[in-house]
C-alpha cells in the first residue's frame, strides 16, 4: 500500500510539473490542480493507514482510532487550493482576453505601459 501510494503521488507531481512547464496558461492552471491533489494524497499517506483503524468520531470504541489531524489539514488545504485555483483561472482568462494569446512566452515584457 505504501509503495502504491508513493508511486501515485510521485506520478501526479511529475505530471503536474510537466503541465506547469508547458507554454499554455490553461495547462499551467491544470498543473496546479494536479499539484494540490497530489499534496492532499501525500497528507493522507502521512497519517498512516491500517485496515482496523476506526473513525475518530466514535469516542468509546475499543479499537485504535485513526489520527484525525491529517484529514483536518487536507480539508483546509482543499478549501484554500480551490479558492486559489479559481482565482488563477480567472486571472489566466483575463490575460487571454487582454493579449489574445494563452502562450505566456508571447506576453509583452515588463514595462511601464
Amino acid at each position: 500500500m505504501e509503495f502504491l501510494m508513493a508511486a501515485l503521488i510521485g506520478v501526479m507531481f511529475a505530471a503536474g510539473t510537466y503541465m506547469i512547464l508547458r507554454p499554455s496558461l490553461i495547462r499551467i492552471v491544470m498543473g496546479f490542480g494536479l499539484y494540490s491533489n497530489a499534496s492532499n494524497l501525500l497528507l493522507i499517506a502521512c497519517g498512516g493507514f491500517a485496515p482496523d483503524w476506526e473513525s475518530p468520531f466514535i469516542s468509546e470504541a475499543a479499537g485504535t482510532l485513526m489520527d484525525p489531524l491529517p484529514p483536518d489539514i487536507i480539508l483546509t488545504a482543499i478549501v484554500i487550493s480551490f479558492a486559489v485555483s479559481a482565482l488563477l483561472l480567472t486571472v489566466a482568462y483575463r490575460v487571454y482576453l487582454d493579449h489574445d494569446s494563452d502562450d505566456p512566452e508571447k506576453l509583452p515584457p515588463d514595462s511601464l505601459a
Partner: protein
Amino acid sequence: MNPHLILPLLIPFSTAILLAFLNGFPRLERALNLASTAGLTALSFWLLGEVDRGGIQAMVAGGWFAPWGIAFVADRLACIMLCLSSSVGALALAYACFSVEPRQERSFFHPLFQLLLLGVNWAFLTGDLFNLFVAYEVMLVASYGMMMVGASKRQVRQTLKYIAINSVGSTVFVVCCGLVYATLGTLNMADIALRSAQLDGERAALVTAVSMLLMVVFALKAAAFPVFFWLPDSYPIVPAGLNGYFAGLLTKVGVYSLLRMFVLCFRQPGAELVLQVLLVLSGFTMLFGVLGALCQWEIRKILSWHIISQVGYMVMGIGLAAAGADVAFAAVAATIFYVVHHIVVKASLFLIGGIAGRVAGTQELRAMGGVIDLAPGVAGLFLVAGFSLAGMPPFSGFFAKLVLIRAGLADGQLAIVLVSLVTSLLTLFSMAKIWAYGFWRASSLSAPLARHRALMAPAAVLVAFTVAMGLVAEPVLRLANDAARDVVDPSAYQAAVLVPVPAPGQPHAAGEGSAR
C-alpha cells in the same frame, strides 16, 4: 491564557468586513481604515510593553492545551514585528489615501489592505506550523488582490506570474506540514523544538531533510537566492504607497519564519546544516540583488532589487546562528535589529521614490532630474534614507551592519563579511546613481507636476525614525538582544506555551499526541 492575543487578528478581520460593505464611500472608508490601523498600532505597542515586562504570552484556541489546541504566542520578536507591521501599515495607508487612483480605490482597495494586515499579523503571532501556512495563504490572496487592484493589463499579467510562483511555494509548504507531522508527530512550534531536540540518528537526518524543504519555501517568500526572480517584476505594480508596505513587510515575513523555524524550532543534531546552507545562499543573495539593482534605470525597480540584497544581510545573520551559543545570540540579535532598520528604511524609500516620481512626472532616471530644485524637502529625505540603506553613520543602517559584521567576525566567517562590505559599497553607488540622475541633474520642468507636501508627512516620520534609531541605538539594541535570547534558547517559549495539563477534565486527544 491571554485572550487579547487574538485582537491583532480580529481587528483587521472585522474592519475588512465592514469596509467591504462601505465600498463606494471613499471618505468613510478612509476614515474607518485609518482609525482601525491607528488603533491596531496602539494595541501592538501596548502588547510589546506587556510582553517586554511580563515575559512571553500564549493563548490556545478553544480552551485546549498546547500541543493539541492551536496556539498563538507573543514573544518579543513577534511583538516587534507586529508593531512594525501596524505602524508602517498606517503610514503607508496615510500616503495611499492621498495618492491612490479613484479607479483603484473603488476596486476594494481598503478591505484588501485590512486582509493583508490580518495575514501578516497572523503569521507573526501563530505558534503552529499549519496555522502559519493558513496565515501565508490569507496574506498571499490579499496581496494578489492588492496587486491587481484597478486591473490594468500590466498588473494582471504580472500578477499571474506572482500567483503561479507562490502557488508552487504553497504546495511545497503544505507538503512540508504533512512531512513534519509524519516525522515529529506535532505541528506546534514549541513542541517541535522539544521533540526535535530528543531525536538522533536516522530520524534526525530525516527531519533535517524535511526542514531543508521548508527552508526553500521560506526562502522563496523572503526572495533569497536562487528564488528571488519574481520580486522585481511584481512589486513595482502595487498601488503607490502600498508598495512601501509590501517592500517593508512581505519578504520580512519569510525572514521571520526562517528565524522562527530554524533558530527556535528545529534543534535535532545536524540542524545547523540548514543554517550553513543559508549562510552560503545569503552571500549570493546580497551580490545578485545589488548587481541587479545596478543595471536598472527605474527608481521602483532599483529599490525592488535592493530588497533582495538587503534580505541577504538578514539571512546572513540567520546563517551565522549555526555557530556556538554566544555567536548565535549576537547574530540573531543583529538580524532582529537589521529587520527593524530595513523595514523602516525600505518603506520610506519607496514612499520617497513615489513622491519624486509624481513631482518629476516619471520614475525613469534617464528622463527625470532636478527634484532637488522642484522639491528640496523630498531630496533631503531621500538623502538620509539612501545613506541609511547603504549603512553610513550616523543612521540606523550603520549600526545594523556594524552588529551583523561583528557577529560574522566573531564566528571567523571572513568571506561572507567581505561580500557584505562589497555589497554595502555597491548599494552606496546605486543610491548615488538615483541621487545624481533623479535629484541633482538640471530639470526641464519649472514647477513640480503634482502637489506633494501632504505626501511627505508619512515618509518624514519613517525617516525621522531611522535617524533616531541611529542616534539612540541603545534601546532598540537592548530590545533586539532580549528578543534574541528568547529565540536562541527555547526554554522560555516552551514554558509559556506547553503549560502542564490539569488532571481532571483532561482533553481527549487521538493519534501520536496522546502519547505525551
